[in-house]
């Protein structure tokens, strides 16, 4: 189903439809993530992808035209590039561990310690929050700074017109 939605997004030329389809895609992705036991991530993806992203896209589209132009040249080369990249990646995945393999390296080392000691050391049953806020709290500080920088960037980019409307800048 996700593949169908993606292909329709590629071919659809009405931009509002593309934004709504992207919201549908985000919800499908959130469902897949729940099936993969990633409940925190699914909630964030649903809230961010289907909520805020749709709002931002619609607000940006509100300020312009809603229809995409017809492409001038046939997209042969990009198609070849995309397929070649996919083929190389698929060849690379043959060496990766099998799906849901308990002996895979990803489950050894640090993850074991977090699962076993996390709830006891921090007193928080949700291991993801414990790791995010306590064991790797420094990284979360960096992430909040990134969000802050994006906010500053948006303010800096879009501020001029408002003061021009008030007649202060020519």
């Amino acid at each position, binding site marked *: 189903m*996700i*593949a169908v939605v*993606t292909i329709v*997004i*590629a071919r659809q030329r009405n*931009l509002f439809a*593309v934004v709504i389809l*992207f919201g549908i895609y*985000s919800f499908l*992705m959130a469902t897949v*993530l729940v099936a*993969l*036991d*990633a*409940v*925190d*991530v699914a909630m964030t*993806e649903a809230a*961010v*992808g289907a909520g805020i*992203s749709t709002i*931002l*896209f619609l607000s*940006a589209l509100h*300020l*312009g035209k809603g229809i*995409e*132009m017809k492409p*001038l040249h046939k*997209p042969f080369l990009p*198609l070849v590039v*995309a397929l070649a*990249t*996919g083929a190389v*990646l*698929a060849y690379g*995945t*043959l060496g*990766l*561990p*099998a*799906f*849901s393999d*308990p002996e895979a390296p*990803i489950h050894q080392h640090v*993850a074991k310690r*977090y*699962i076993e000691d996390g*709830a006891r050391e921090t007193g928080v*049953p*949700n*291991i*993801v929050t414990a790791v*995010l806020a306590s064991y*790797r709290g420094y990284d979360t500080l960096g*992430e909040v700074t*990134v969000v802050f920088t*994006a906010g500053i960037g948006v303010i800096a*980019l879009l501020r001029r*017109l408002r003061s021009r409307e008030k007649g202060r800048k020519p």
Partner: protein
Amino acid sequence: MNVAVHLSYWITILIAISGLYILIARGNLVKKLVGLAIFQTSVYLLYIAPGKLIGGTAPIVADKFAVYSNPLPHVLILTAIVVGVATLALGLALVVRIKEAYGSIEEDEILEQDQSALGPPPEKKK
């Protein structure tokens, strides 16, 4: 060789190349951003799928469960999702400014306006 074992990776690659294709093949700036967002979600899948253990449960400690799926990728991807939406907000702000400066959000029209503003390219000196 068992094909089904790697199926999750191939689905991820499928979504990634469709996102990549939308990003490079379409000229409309907003659609490019949608393609970029799709590519980002495929990367989330790439990290979370290997963390799942069949028979495990979400990584919230409770007495009834013994096997948990790996929480480490969840942490990384949570950060990645938020950074992705921050990037999207900045990208859309740029698109709004471009629309005001050039009057269009189609890549071809913008390139035309740039090239006609710069004049014909200077003669190459041999």
